[in-house]
């Protein structure tokens, strides 16, 4: 039973990181219909920022967290401004290729600067502690990860549903031209979307480092890909969908690992994606898109 419970915690811990990353994917897709392949690599940069702040410069973990989130957010906006804004009217495929290029650039840049090896974090007391929940011991990192993710998601839902900015974001994703005519600044809204998405990725990065204690140049690629699968699974463009998708992927991966088939887990994740897409092409909570004839 205790074993089962700790596996559930593992699944939720992994799932909440996927969910946070998936949210960024989903928001960006919702607003400019771009599969932002560079999103996963923002996590990688965030993870390195945390690593360097704590292990190289000996900063307080909390300062490191703030720094990592800040760097991730700025990086997200910078990428949007430098690479995506000039291409807003270009064919969508060009935008996609650019995203892939940026992803390449970040991965290989990181490899060049930090080396190809995996950097292992020092386990600071804050994250290596354990917690006793009704007789079951769970790691503090897991609890923090899950709690922080849930708070972030609630905050995001509030932001998108209740604030003026959120309304602008929804308007732009509905109809870019019409939103612009209503006086909504396209550039600002899109940049904000990237900022928020990258902010969440930054949090995801910190939580990832806190949970798995490592950073490597290629860590963002598969993580991002699977978070993206999570976003699609839940229904891309939908915030609750991204959360559901993230947790679903986390649970599936944990189950496959528990079954002793961890080398198969990527395959299983993608197989589930395919099945869901075939049964319900728009994902669990996505809206169908109807082309007007």
């Amino acid at each position, binding site marked *: 039973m205790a074993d089962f419970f700790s596996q559930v915690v593992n699944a939720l811990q992994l799932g909440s990181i996927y969910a946070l990353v998936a949210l960024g994917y989903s928001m960006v897709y919702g607003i400019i219909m771009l599969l932002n392949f560079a999103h996963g690599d923002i996590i990688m940069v965030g993870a390195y920022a945390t690593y360097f702040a704590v292990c190289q410069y000996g900063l307080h973990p909390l300062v490191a967290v703030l720094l990592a989130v800040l760097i991730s957010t700025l990086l997200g906006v910078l990428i949007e401004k430098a690479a995506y804004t000039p291409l807003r009217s270009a064919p969508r495929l060009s935008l996609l290729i*650019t995203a892939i290029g940026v992803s*390449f650039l970040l991965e290989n840049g990181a490899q060049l600067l930090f080396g190809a090896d995996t950097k292992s974090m020092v386990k600071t007391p804050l994250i290596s502690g354990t917690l006793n929940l009704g007789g079951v011991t769970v790691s503090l990192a897991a609890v923090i990860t899950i709690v922080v993710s849930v708070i972030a998601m609630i905050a995001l839902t509030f932001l998108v549903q209740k604030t003026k900015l959120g309304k602008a974001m929804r308007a732009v994703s509905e109809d870019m031209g019409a939103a612009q005519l209503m006086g909504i600044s396209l550039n600002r809204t899109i940049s904000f979307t990237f900022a928020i998405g990258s902010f969440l990725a930054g949090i995801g990065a910190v939580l990832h480092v806190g949970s798995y204690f490592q950073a490597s140049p290629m860590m963002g690629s598969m993580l991002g890909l699977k978070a993206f*699968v999570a976003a699609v699974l839940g229904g891309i463009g939908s915030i609750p969908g991204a959360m559901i998708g993230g947790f679903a992927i986390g649970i599936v991966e944990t189950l496959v690992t528990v079954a002793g088939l961890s080398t198969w887990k990527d395959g299983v994740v993608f197989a589930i994606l395919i099945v869901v*897409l075939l049964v319900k092409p728009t994902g669990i909570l996505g809206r169908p898109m109807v082309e007007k004839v």
Partner: protein
Amino acid sequence: MKQTKRIPMPVRYGINLVLTLALWGVLAAMIASGVITNYWNGVLITIGINVILAVSLNIATGYLGQLPLGHAGFMAVGAYAGGIFMKATPLGALLKAGETGAAVPWIILALLIAGLTAGVFGLIIGIPALRLKGDYLAIITLGFGEIIRVVLTNVDSVLGFKFTYGAAGLKQIPKITSFNLVFLCVALTILIIHMVMKSKHGRAILSIRENQIAAESVGINTTYYKVAAFVLSAVFAGVAGCLYAGYLGSLVPSSFKFMKSIEILVMVVLGGMGSMLGSVIAASVLTVISELLRSVGDYRMVFYALLLVLMMIFRPKGLMGTYDFSMSRLLEKLINRGKAKPVPSAAEGEEAQRDE
């Protein structure tokens, strides 16, 4: 009806055949005389394989207007199917004994099997995937590509037979791939794709890219042609995979990662989607660039990525633009310069860009 005089078709085909043979002759002579070193011979073979991959992906991306992200998966299927077949045949022994003539049927068979197996996978994947539109198709093909790789990594024997050898990879595949074979395959691939695209079937494929609803309204079975284009694309990817297996002599599943699919896609987009010549040029240039950048070591991939981003920002439609650039249009202009009146390019007379 203003019907301008055109060069008759046999002559057009003849011109292209001569050009192709001339290119082959020059390259073969350079290899024979050592002007092209062994190293660059290898690069030429890699270029050829990449060209086949790019032009085959171009069918699905440029002509059909879909975005499959699992092309490396089909390449992997072809490579493994071809590799396993070649290992099972006396090919290795024949090549070692220098009996090239006797090996030829086996080589042809291997290429066919690789192409057909990949085609079957294309069919299995295409039928469900093509029901979805746009990005969903991209995602689902990405998923299939990854699954193929995961399966190849984890399965090493089937029913007790050593089969794909799992993560360690398939080894000691007969090295069938020579410059001549690759050149022939490239020429045939381009020829076949060109012939298909300049027929009613090719038109139907293009019409889906242009406007699917309109295509259906004039009675074009879009599902059929989507799947057909997808399968065709997979078949040639499989052939390229077989050549790849026969070139390296060994295969590991990790060479068919998602990034490989992206690499091929980049070639197509950089060349200009829907432009076969564009794909050919981009595949050649990128292969050479990536070879040249080998000397700068770690900076290589950074350069590559930067190039990609800058290219997209400053020339988002690719080198050759979006429409089918044809070598013969250039030729036609040159030929017609001698004539009194300018001849507008004929819709159906355009010839293959077989100038790899």
